[in-house]
């Protein structure tokens, strides 16, 4: 037996492959434009708006939405919630691919990408929050690679190396959670230096805490959301244990997400209260802020609770989707929408379609890699030769 269940035929010219192939071809052309013409050739970045869609979406959203890896690893390996074990490998895989996509996107965004190692090998600038972000993301990418490796090694049948890596699981998990705590919060801390540019409703000295707590909600929701998508596409790759515990994962993670969102809502209210920004809620930016807080924090929190009470996985899946949207909304607000809010409309930034095109290209490459891996490696099922019987 090599794989559980009956394997679905996946033809080369499937609709997915045709669409993904087209996007990748366009992406390669855009990449050519970017690296031969400079940032100005494909972006709307300018001297007032030095950070655009690639930082707002690819970096800030990418890192937050890849938080499923460390949250699930914490639940299973540290808190001993073995019943969620089947969710761990998919979460680690998407975490690893997510961070890889972030780094690829950064290669497009920085002016001289071949110098990315400079802060760590040539000329460190540790007074910069970005130094901390860079160091943690780099180290965590290595950790995620090592956490992902057993899946590849089981596929390749490498027993010895796999055993060494599996023995390091706890160490890697704890290191990964520590690094994630640091850089998830530091992404918020990046904006501490710009109280004069970020709208006061989003600016707060608690930004690092906001980013960290919301990343936990993002991670939990992404595990539910990705699980929902995977169930549609790769049910044939899932073993009995994965299918049997899927709803338990949704209920358990949904309950946890409800608590985290409630806490997040509370500290966001404290943020408004402590800076006494109540009057700003009645402005246009205030309405946008309220939409984010009520529609994409409080509402999913409530839906999670109802879903858990009624044992309704479908409702929880919708709540998770709403939470994911809310995280995207929050990160884009801080980086783009509420940033430079005092500039006249003519000087504001709106992404060029080619910036979005390259982001779509990077995500497509990630999804393609995901498909390649889950159809070959033991992600949704336990490899019969390496069964440990938890």
């Amino acid at each position, binding site marked *: 037996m090599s794989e559980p269940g009956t394997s679905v035929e996946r033809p080369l010219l499937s609709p997915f492959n045709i669409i993904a192939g087209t996007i990748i071809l366009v992406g390669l052309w855009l990449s050519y434009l970017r690296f031969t013409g400079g940032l*100005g050739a494909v972006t709307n970045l300018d001297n007032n708006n030095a950070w655009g869609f690639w930082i707002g979406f690819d970096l800030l959203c990418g890192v937050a939405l890849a938080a499923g890896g460390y949250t699930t690893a914490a639940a299973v390996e540290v808190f001993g919630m073995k019943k969620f074990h089947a969710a761990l490998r998919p979460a680690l895989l998407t975490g690893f691919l997510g961070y890889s996509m972030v780094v690829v996107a950064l290669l497009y965004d920085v002016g001289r990408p071949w110098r990315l190692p400079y802060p760590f090998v040539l000329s460190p600038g540790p007074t910069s929050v970005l130094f901390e972000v860079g160091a943690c993301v780099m180290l965590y990418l290595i950790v995620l690679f090592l956490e992902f490796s057993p899946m590849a090694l089981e596929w390749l049948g490498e027993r010895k190396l796999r055993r060494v890596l599996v023995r390091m699981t706890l160490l890697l998990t704890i290191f990964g959670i520590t690094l994630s705590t640091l850089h998830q919060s530091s992404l918020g801390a*990046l904006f501490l230096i*710009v109280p004069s540019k970020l709208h006061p409703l989003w600016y707060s000295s608690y930004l690092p805490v906001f980013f960290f707590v919301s990343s936990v909600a993002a991670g939990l929701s992404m595990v539910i959301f990705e699980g929902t998508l995977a169930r549609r596409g790769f049910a044939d790759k899932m073993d009995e244990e994965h299918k049997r515990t899927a709803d338990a994962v949704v209920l358990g993670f949904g309950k946890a997400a409800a608590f985290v969102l409630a806490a997040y809502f509370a500290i966001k209210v404290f943020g408004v209260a402590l800076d006494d920004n109540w009057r700003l809620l009645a402005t246009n930016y205030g309405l946008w802020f309220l939409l984010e807080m009520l529609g994409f924090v409080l509402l999913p929190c409530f839906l999670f609770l109802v879903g858990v009470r009624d044992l309704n996985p479908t409702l929880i899946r919708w709540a998770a989707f709403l939470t994911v949207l809310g995280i995207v909304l929050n990160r884009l607000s801080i980086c783009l929408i509420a940033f430079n809010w005092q500039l006249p409309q003519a000087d504001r930034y709106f992404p060029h379609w080619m910036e979005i095109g390259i982001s779509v290209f990077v995500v497509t490459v990630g999804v393609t890699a995901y498909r390649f891996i889950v159809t070959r490696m033991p992600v949704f099922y336990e490899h019969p030769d390496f069964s440990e019987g938890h």
Partner: protein
Amino acid sequence: MTAAGAAMAVPKVAGAYGEFSGHPDAYGVLHDITLCIGCRLCEKACVEVNDDLPMPEKPFDDESVLEKRRRTDDKTYTVVNRYDVESHQNSPVFRKFQCNHCMEPACMSSCFVDAYSKTPEGAVVYDASVCVGCRYCIVACPFDVPTYEYNDPLEPKVMKCTLCHPRLLEGKLPGCVEACPQESLLFGRREDLIAVARERIRKHPDRYIDHIYGEHEMGGTNWLYISGAPFEELGFRTDLGTAPAPKLTSGALSAVPIIVGVWPALLGGIYVMTRTKEKTTTREKDSAVREAIETTQAAADEARKKAAEKGKADKEKAVELAVKKALEKTAKESAEEGS
């Protein structure tokens, strides 16, 4: 007190930020906005002394340039803008814009390759040879000064005014200051410039607003401004506060070592606790099972023993009975024989 003693006396608190009042002999420039006539000779001089800057398309005496509000870009280190200020009788007002050379610069604090430095002469200079091009400095600068060469695919650089640092080292004035025909730009030690500015404001309270912009803004800058028109109407941000930029992030950065130190211990502790709990549960379950088995076993043994004893007794009784019967039979037979 010796220098060492003085250094020892400074309390060292993690995350706390020592006061820095600037390099003692740092230079600066005082821009007296009331004297500026908008001739843009400073802009011209800037392009002339900085070899990497190209001449603009429109000549410097083309007044139509002043119609639009401009900012610095990768081809201009400094611009003069015209402001039509209603509340000010000497309208229009001209104001020069360039890097303010902060005493504790946001660009320098935010740079993750340490490409910026604050020289003892007062200039904030940038080293393109290590720059990765993350552009965090441009995001961080509260004065919107640094610019980027977005259209250079191979060697894009951040571009900004250097206070003519190379010229200062040669004992020359910054290009713009040297070119100013109105003495609207005054070069000198920053401390002296503050004294000059105060004196002018004191002598002409009707002419100046009682504020030296740059004395305290963002921890103080080496460019200083005095004006007759309200600063906020001349494109100055007057809501920046007096805290230097590094102070805004030092608290968050000081949390890093704490998390690095505490998190592994905390998580390890949680792991050990869960494991212990798991083990205890398993052990308790095992011992409960064992106890149950033992109890059942003992009860069964007891029952078996009882049954065996009973059986033994029954057997003995049966034997006794049989013997008795046999004896009786024998006695009877012998009695019959005997009769």
